[in-house]
């Protein structure tokens, strides 16, 4: 199963990655190989196996609705490259 160059570009765009032509070729090969490997799973007959959604715990423990202290502003913003007025500052966002 081989990915098209356009598919590789689309995936890169979704992941916000800018790839060189050389990388596109390389990742196309690698991603295709990964898909081929995973595709082996398709060979299994799972008709009688109920679908599952991840996790080793079969049932989810729920949490009581009780607020607990959050991070201090200093802790929260400690690693922010830019901050202003107690908020993360980021490059301008336009719709």
């Amino acid at each position: 199963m081989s990915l098209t160059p356009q598919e590789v570009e689309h995936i890169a765009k979704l992941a916000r990655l800018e790839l060189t032509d050389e990388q596109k070729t390389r990742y196309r090969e690698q991603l295709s190989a990964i898909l081929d490997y995973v595709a082996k799973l398709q060979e299994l007959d799972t008709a009688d196996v109920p679908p599952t959604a991840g996790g080793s715990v079969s049932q989810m423990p729920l949490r009581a609705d009780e607020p607990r202290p959050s991070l201090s502003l200093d802790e929260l913003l400690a690693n922010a490259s830019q901050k202003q007025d107690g908020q993360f500052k980021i490059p301008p966002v336009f719709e």
Partner: protein
Amino acid sequence: MPNQYEPVIGLEVHAEMQTRSKMFCSCAVVDNTVAEPNIAVCPVCAGMPGTLPVVNQRAVEYALRVALALGCEVNYTSIFARKNYFYPDLPKGYQISQYETPLAVNGQLTIKTSQGEKIIRVRRVHLEEDTGKLTHIDNGSLVDLNRAGVPLLEIVSEPDMRSVEEAKAYAEALREILRYLEVNSGDMEKGVIRFESNVSVRAAGTEEFNTRVEIKNLNSFRALERASAFEIERQSKVLAAGGTIEQETLGWNDVSEKTYSQRSKEDAHDYRYFPEPDLPLLVIEKDWVEQIRASLPELPRAKFQRFVKEYGLTEYAAGVLVAERAVADYFEAALKAKKVSAKSVANWIVGDLFAVANQAGETAANSQVQPEALAELVELVDGGVINQTTGKDVLIEMYQTGKPAGEIVEAKGLKQVSDVDFISKIVGETLAENPKEAASYKAGKTAVVNFLFGQAMKKAAGKANPTVVKAELERQLGL
């Protein structure tokens, strides 16, 4: 053109579930219109690596309340999924939502419009988390994550609405139910409910669905109405001119009152949904669902029907009372306090109590005047102890002083006088003082009786029983 095209509208409603803590972490849910930025943020809702989400039980309970109130089928096992996209208000780079197998499906909501009642089907109800808030400044944007991770319920209708009026009625009915269920304040200004309107139009009388557009982030009923109406008009014109509608995502500009394109189909979001690996299946016990079902309050539509049937109220009065659960409760508490006419109590609440409370910037239900106190006032008026006009003044005084009606009437000597001798004397004097009017009445100008009645009432300082005055006036004039 007006009736050549029929609109087809489906709504997605996002409602915050106003729990105490967030959906997947224990940070407090704060009112983000007043809280200082970033005071309720932890490594989980900030999307720090190595953290794990844990589901808030009450958020699930609230969501189930809504699902059951809408008559949905609950999926006893549902799945959380990752919805992947990049936007700075989404710290993890994905939103935990539900995709395949949502919490509940196949519900319905009955709406009321000028055309009567109509059932709007609800396709699905699922739980997810809210995003943070961006503030755009000159040279960048600021990110406040207080809202990030607040439980959010998405309620998706089928495209069953055929007019803007129906869309608005659906949105309003849903808000009313959310408030009745006490899962959401319904405070639109605070952005706790948001709409997305999916609009297409088709030739009237046809059944197939045409290409639709999505109008995102509508924060008020007005925006919902205006934006949907704008799109219907725009699409009708395009089709009438032989054009085609592009599938796209639109925003709504509240100022210019126009929709604008945010995304076309070519770069439509590719969310790459997949089951959330950090969360096991959400398994819900049947017993829990039944417990919640049994604890649901009487819902607005049922209450409305009961008020009309049981108390003989007009649809108008019943509608106004039922719009707020607290007001409906107030009404019934007043009836419980004293044996008074339900219609009278309803009229007093919908009319004067609303007006007085409104003026004081309060709501009728949490006003100074308790239901028992209002019932006493109604008893005094209906029993003829004071007249209607005096009653209105007494209510204002009750509101200001918190004193009971009886005490005010007593202290101010407001009791209505029905004593025939007293009234007969007043009427006699009135006629003697206004000989011209009395004469013209006898000459056939009967309308002048209203003037004479007013004079007599004034003479009695408003305390005379108007029915007795009227009768006496007619008796003396008719001689």
